[in-house]
């Protein structure tokens, strides 16, 4: 509701008068409908100029930065495509390298299709699980929410880096458990390469949930913050690992020993 007192010439908001009475009075005095389209409430501004200026400045600054980057750095163009010459390593575009990293540790269908599909559906479903309007417009909802995000980020990074190194040391056989299932129990691929890795992922998520529950006693929104942060950090860690730490044969290496630019 527009606060007409802001517009009244020389008028200070007459707080002492009861609101309903004041509005009736103003109506009488002005002899017209209360709110015009241009009447501004105390917490409102005109889009022109207040927002349009911000947009114009942002667009200009960003265009200049983009121009500078495009003058300074050339887009890569390697030799002509040659189906007979496979580069080692061959890598997907960087934003899919998280999936390619995942692919090293389990069945391709699980890593490349099932997990990303489940992740996207889960992301899209967030608003249907967390419906309370509390904390809207506040970064991380609350101090506790921000702490949970920080805790989850550290937990996820440490666990993921540990898991990647551990699986690499055991020749990517699900920390050696897969190898034992396969060699000693004759388990089929379905068990050691699909069920087992999915189980490990679910257990890791469960550990995170239990830790956050015990340490922080979160609301539903704060628990979803933990899960979302876990997803984002996983995406980042796997992308960095796939981009900068996978050399020939997809073996772990250091970034400065990578053969090809991506």
């Amino acid at each position: 509701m527009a606060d007409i007192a802001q517009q009244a010439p020389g008028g200070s908001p007459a707080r002492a008068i009861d609101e309903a009475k004041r509005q009736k009075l103003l109506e009488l005095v002005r002899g017209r409908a209360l709110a015009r389209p241009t009447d501004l409430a105390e917490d409102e501004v005109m889009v022109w100029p207040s927002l349009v200026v911000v947009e114009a400045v942002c667009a200009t600054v960003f265009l200049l930065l983009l121009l500078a980057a495009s003058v300074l750095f050339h887009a890569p163009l390697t030799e002509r495509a040659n189906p007979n010459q496979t580069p080692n390593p061959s890598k997907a575009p960087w934003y899919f390298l998280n999936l390619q990293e995942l692919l090293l540790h389990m069945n391709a269908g699980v890593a490349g299709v099932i997990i990303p599909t489940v992740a996207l559906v889960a992301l899209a479903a967030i608003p249907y699980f967390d419906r309370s309007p509390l904390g809207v417009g506040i970064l991380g909802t609350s101090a506790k929410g921000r702490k949970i995000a920080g805790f989850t980020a550290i937990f996820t990074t440490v666990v993921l880096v540990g898991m990647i190194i551990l699986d690499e040391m055991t020749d990517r056989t699900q920390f050696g458990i897969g190898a034992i299932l396969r060699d000693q129990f004759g388990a089929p691929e379905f068990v050691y390469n699909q069920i087992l890795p999915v189980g490990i992922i679910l257990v890791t998520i469960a550990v995170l949930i239990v830790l956050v529950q015990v340490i922080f006693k979160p609301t539903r929104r704060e628990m979803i913050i933990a899960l979302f942060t876990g997803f984002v950090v996983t995406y980042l860690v796997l992308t960095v690992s796939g981009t900068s730490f996978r050399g020939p044969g997809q073996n772990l290496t250091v970034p400065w020993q990578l053969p090809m630019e991506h």
Partner: protein
Amino acid sequence: MAREQTLADKISSSSLWRSVVRHGYPDTQRNQALIIASNVFLHIHPVKIKRYATKVTYTFCLGGLSFFMFLVLTGTGVLLMFYYIPSADLAYQSMVAIEADVTFGQLMRNMHRWSAQGMVIAVFLHMCRVFYTGSYKPPREFNWVIGILLLVTTFLLSFTGYLLPWDQLALWAITVGTEIGGAAPLLGEYVNLILRGDFEIGQSALIRFYTLHVLFLPLVAAFLMAVHFWRIRKDGGISGPL
């Protein structure tokens, strides 16, 4: 108090000028409202807005930047299309020509490449901003879902564009990428065949990726963005503290 008519006044009060711009100079609230409401590009905005919604440190302009990069990509993309030839035989050659022979060709290609990467990053960060400020909560649930579809569309736009330079980087990135998709249980083989139009990446894959990249996916993105922006307005503008 009447002031002297300047040349600018005469121009802006001429009937020719008034036929194009229907409002006066936006120095009064009335004209500031009219400029937003009567301009087809600006009327994406409401006339007035909550003060917190103009704060850069709330949105970091991420959604706006994503859209801005989409526009840059459309502009530079159209220019590149004048020279690029979507043929397995000629594509690489035309890329080399764009870089070496076409005036500002290298610059256009660089801008296209870097904004493509930038758009993926901006869209992802925009999703994070919207999440951490709880902006997906009712009534904005469905707009969040549209946003996820836009994220997927952005990935696909970038992915289909990746093949077009027809260099080693492009060929093998798309080989690995489509193999990931091809690993889908049951449907994998079909997905791969539909994407590539062949058993390996060749002319049919190139023309499919090209058509998806320059026509189909941009239309999908534009359609989803129209819904996305419209719903922001209908859901009461961008979110803010209650």
